[in-house]
């Protein structure tokens, strides 16, 4: 670096006035077929990256990300499943030696030892040898660990009831008969629509009116007396209309006569 007297700066800044040439480094004297990362190597990598990206985009178009129905914390019958890369841990906790009173072993001790050893690998394996064959202990422990993770994941996938899982999470769709007289009554109920939406399927403020399996009488009761988060006496119309609407709601969006 240039220092001392005779240095010229740009204005009153500390930027040296003398420009450095912008020339890439020359690797011709380097061993083997060394090449420059920029731009030679990176240009080629970008093409590989583009192919990779196209394949990836095809995957996302062919398999949209799954979405189940909205979380219902009261549904205690739901069989939970974490994302696939946590399955090995989840499976471990199902074995007798790692569950119940021994949960600590499955949840903390075994993963703790495994990940702790991974973190400290450079100090557990200090020899100068780099080839996996020449450090059999380190290599076999790693192979064993990988095999166990694959095995546990496999077992977990195998034991999970995928059909029941798909069903328990499925989004429930209601077919609302929008031609019916009952739906016509609904379209006049601006109060209801404000919360339950013009399609009766709910929105941010309220669930679909068909959400629970209420009977006609229970629906009438809710409409007359309200519910948590829903005010009473919002219905505007005759008792007869209320009956028709309630029957329609209790029948999940179809006129009861129709079926």
């Amino acid at each position: 670096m240039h220092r001392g007297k005779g240095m010229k700066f740009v204005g009153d800044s500390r930027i040296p006035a003398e420009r450095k040439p912008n020339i890439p480094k020359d690797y011709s004297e380097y061993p083997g077929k060394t090449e420059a990362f920029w731009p030679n190597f990176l240009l080629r990598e970008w093409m590989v990256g583009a192919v990779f990206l196209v394949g990836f985009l095809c995957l996302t178009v062919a398999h949209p990300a799954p979405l189940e129905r909205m979380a219902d914390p009261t549904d205690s019958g739901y069989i939970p499943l974490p994302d696939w890369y946590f399955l090995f841990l989840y499976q471990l906790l199902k074995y007798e030696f790692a569950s119940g009173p021994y949960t600590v072993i499955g949840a903390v001790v075994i993963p703790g030892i495994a990940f702790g050893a991974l973190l400290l690998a450079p100090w557990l394996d200090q020899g100068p040898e780099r080839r996996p064959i020449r450090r059999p202990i380190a290599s076999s422990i790693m192979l064993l660990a990988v095999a166990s993770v694959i095995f546990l994941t496999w077992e977990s996938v195998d034991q999970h009831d995928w059909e029941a899982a798909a069903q328990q999470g499925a989004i429930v769709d209601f077919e609302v008969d929008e031609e019916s007289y009952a739906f016509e009554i609904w379209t006049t109920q601006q109060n209801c629509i404000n919360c339950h939406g013009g399609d009766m399927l709910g929105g941010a403020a309220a669930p679909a009116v068909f959400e629970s399996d209420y009977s006609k009488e229970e629906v009438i009761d809710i409409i007359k007396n309200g519910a948590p988060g829903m005010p009473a006496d919002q219905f505007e119309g005759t008792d007869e209309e209320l009956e028709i609407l309630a029957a329609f709601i209790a029948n999940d969006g179809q006129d009861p006569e129709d079926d």
Partner: protein
Amino acid sequence: MLQKIYDWIDERLDITPMWRDIADHEVPEHVNPAHHFSAFVYCFGGLTFFVTVIQILSGMFLTMYYVPDIIHAYESVYFLQNEVTHGVIVRGMHHWGASLVIVMMFLHTLRVFFTGSYKKPRELNWVVGVLIFFVMLGLGFTGYLLPWDMKAYFATVVGLEIAESAPVIGGFAKALLAGGEIIGAQTLTRFFAIHVFFLPGALLGLLGAHFYMIRKQGISGPL
């Protein structure tokens, strides 16, 4: 024209040394798949980074629609998935990318392990790598809750039960993550903050350290 702009900035900020520092580094023969096909294993780190960039970009677009509260979270994801043009692709990229990044990172870790590249003088970079591994798993765990659908909610319940079973710190860890006793509104807000601010911040810092060390030390030599 571009050259003129470059020169104009360079005169004022002297960026050439910095730029040459970033651009000039060599790719040795033994890591270049163009010369030895088996060297593709050295690409896993770069691919992990590529997918990480996809995650950050797609995640940024997701937050343009996502609303992190228990009433609107599900609705907003549903809307994005079913109504927004290309929303299904953006969400798909983030969803599948989350899996892909774990796969790539796993392969990269195995490459580094089986080439013995974690040995002196690269111990510190290995440790940083394992920390990145943990951050990535944390991102996966916290991100899983955000759509607030059935699988999200109950997987989180189980995950937090596991955290709670840890001795001494278990209860504290659970309360910290769940934001209270019940898994509900607070939990979702916490997970959102952790997923979108805390962990990506940590990830970027760690990645910076990771790349700095690689550049400083160079890639490990041939076996």
